């Protein structure tokens, strides 16, 4: 029995043209038994950063609260919101603190970074459960359906997708991947982050 697969769940993030998307399934299970079809594992960090925490259910909450603590302290001391890349390093160092007794979570980060010219630059990253950062330029995946997500994303993703097309791409990648994973599924949630708004949609999925 793998702890990483005890509760199930998967997350994917993708880069588009001046936008990013992050999506997850909604299942919480205990091995083969399904417990919840509304388990949120993606959290807003700031107005333009989201973090997805697939892995052990109890660590999803604990780790998110730890991140919130540290981000709040950063915000109140620094008197500004944290940048996505800074947050990625915060995630990484927080996980590495527990190098020999880790949280069983593989975080996925999606956000828009500010550029000096006042624009935004899409940012995604993922880490393993001890904080090894992966700054990908196209997409990152994690969770029990990760191999299926890799296959889907590798087949569907293309550069410079507009927000609506990015939404369709990430949704199809996620839905078809989790349909082939017994530990993921039971509905999905998708967040598309653009310069001036965040669109969140909940998707119906197969309930088997």
């Amino acid at each position, binding site marked *: 029995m793998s702890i990483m697969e005890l509760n199930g769940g998967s997350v994917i993030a993708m880069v588009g043209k001046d936008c990013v998307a992050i999506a997850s399934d909604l299942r919480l299970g205990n091995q083969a038994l399904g417990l919840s079809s509304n388990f949120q594992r993606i959290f807003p960090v700031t107005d333009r950063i989201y973090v997805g925490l697939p892995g052990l259910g109890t660590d999803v909450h604990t780790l998110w609260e*730890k991140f*919130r*603590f540290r981000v*709040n*302290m950063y915000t*109140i001391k620094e*008197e500004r919101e944290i940048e996505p890349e800074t947050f990625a390093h915060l995630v990484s160092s927080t996980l590495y603190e527990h190098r020999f007794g880790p949280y069983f979570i593989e975080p996925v980060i999606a956000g828009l970074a500010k550029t000096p010219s006042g624009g935004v630059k899409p940012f995604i990253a993922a880490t393993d459960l001890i904080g090894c950062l992966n700054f990908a330029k196209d997409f990152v995946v994690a969770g029990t359906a990760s191999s299926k997500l890799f296959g889907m994303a590798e087949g569907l993703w293309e550069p410079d997708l507009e927000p609506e097309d990015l939404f369709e791409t990430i949704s199809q990648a996620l839905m078809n991947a989790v349909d082939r994973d017994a530990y993921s599924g039971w509905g999905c949630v998708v967040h598309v982050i653009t310069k001036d708004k965040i669109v969140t949609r909940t998707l119906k999925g197969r309930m088997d």
Partner: protein
Amino acid sequence: MARRYDSRTTIFSPEGRLYQIEYAMEAISHAGTVLGVLAKDGVVLAAEKKVTGKLLDLSSTKEGGYGGSGEKIYLLNDNVIGGVAGLTADANSLVNYARTAAQRHLLTYNEDIPVELLAQRLCNLKQGYTQFGGLRPFGVSLLYAGYDPHYQFQLYHSDPSGNYSGWKATCIGANNGTAQSLLKQEYKDDIEVKDAIGLVLRTMSKTMDSTTLGSEKLEFAVLTLDETTKRPKAKIYKPSEIDALLASEGLMKKDEDTEMKAA
């Protein structure tokens, strides 16, 4: 005689006094005034800035951040604003402690820390320095303007001994006696924030040493409840906003040229 007792914080004098604490409080009564008024629908804080001068770099206070120039008024948590009087260095340490304590509470209970509990956390720390040897007490008094769902809006004061108390309106720092008697006369139980703002500014203008009132000598903050989210909304005013507020309250320092023209 007193020499024997006042150099140690943890030793009582024969009269049962802790001189170091009293000296700390004395130091604070010369510090910049901090004034708070509890209203029905919010809390108002104002503070007198001591470190001024045209060579002081205030560029970072003009925009960004939460407002304020970071000398007297600090955001301690989403639901609490703190006003400090005394040693600035000590205050920074306490502010940091308060912020961490508030976040620790949020981590444990997933709710904003109650205002009184936050005051207690700081007082426990401050009290420790009156009892354990080798260290001096924090030379800081604080006002806490806060909100929690149980007791709604609250205003607390804590001093270097670790004492704390709740107030409808109070003042710490220089001329706090004058300010408090003024507040006593003018405070009404059902006062609203919009009137409390006026009360605070008028009291400040009467207590402060300087004759003129402007953003270079004043920090100002209001804690209210956001109508839509029902969450506390802390607003620390930026210098430009303070000047605008003073103008609208008719307390702006007089520009002599315009006065001449008007005459």
